[in-house]
């Protein structure tokens, strides 16, 4: 947090935030594809670098400093954006609201993504989905294909 208070770079938080919003809107929105997601991941990495090295904030105080709040919020948003992109990239299928143009159908067993962040590294694990209800089992990817 301290580096944000003494940040004497050139780029304002709002500018970075707008860039992130544009990037996510274009590549990680309703329709996604591998190429776009890779590009978005690259973009987010660049934005993270700018945030760490070339950020500009006007206030130097911890108390009632909206500039600091904004910068911290942006830091969190960038982290989440990165996680969304990485999780979408590693899921080569379309299921629920996650739609990949390059993989338009569900694939294999249904699974949950579990994400762990250590320092700067994002680790993705999967756990199986337990269907408790019969109708949910009927909707499972394999069964649904059989019915159709």
């Amino acid at each position, binding site marked *: 947090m301290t580096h944000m208070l003494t940040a004497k770079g050139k780029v*304002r938080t*709002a500018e970075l935030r707008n860039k992130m919003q544009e990037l996510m809107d274009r590549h990680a929105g309703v329709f996604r594809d591998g190429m776009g997601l890779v590009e978005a991941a690259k973009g987010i990495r660049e934005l993270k670098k700018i945030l760490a090295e070339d950020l500009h904030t006007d206030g130097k105080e911890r108390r*009632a400093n*909206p*500039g600091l709040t*904004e910068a911290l919020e942006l830091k969190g948003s960038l982290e989440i954006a990165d996680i969304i992109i990485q999780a979408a990239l590693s899921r080569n299928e379309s299921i629920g609201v996650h739609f990949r143009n390059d993989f338009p159908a569900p694939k294999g067993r249904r699974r949950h993504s579990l994400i762990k962040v250590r320092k700067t590294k994002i680790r993705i694990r999967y756990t199986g989905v337990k269907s408790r209800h019969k109708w949910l089992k009927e909707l499972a990817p394999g069964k649904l294909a059989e019915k159709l």
Partner: protein
Amino acid sequence: MKEKTWKISVFRFDPLKDTEHRFVKYAIPRSRVRTVLDALIYIRDHEDDTLAFRSSCRQGRCGSCAVHCNGRYGLACEMPLKSGKNTIRPLAQLPVIKDLVVDMEPFWERYESIKPYLVRSSKTAGRNYRNRRELEKKIDCILCGACFSACLMTGKNPAFHGPAAYVALNRFLHDDSDAITGQRLAMVKGENGVFRCHNMFNCNEACPKNVEPAENILEIKKNID
């Protein structure tokens, strides 16, 4: 061609650093900004990110962005900017924390003191809201504090509950299932109670949700004998 701008003058004050408040002038491109809140956000994003103000929903629902602008109180997100000078000040009658952020504690204290919640007894427990329609307008209050600041009595008399509190009180007077109507009326009967209101109707003018606190106060007065 040079782009047209809004002229905006914002109240700046940091009680821990400054001895006196000051007004800082900004010129903001017209094409990007429409309301007072837009202007404040633009200033924070592009001019000076130390400008403190509260905001949340940006659509007149949450009640966190109440300020004084161009001679009236209201929600910054709903107030349009005018050509000429726009002066933005924090809510009056409340201590400033920084710039446009005020300490709402006095407002909440007085609001709490009238018990703004339903108290039921075993007798009233089963009752339904037969008069739900009557309550509709009263529960529109979003507790922004604009009426509190516009009211001259709240500033003069710290024991006066303020318009927002009386709206809540009147809401429970109209509620069939409330069990402590008598206690509620006794609470506001006294010297510093509801009769301190001199019907200036400033609260009605300030209210962004048209709750009409002054009418509510008059209704409470009618109930007291």
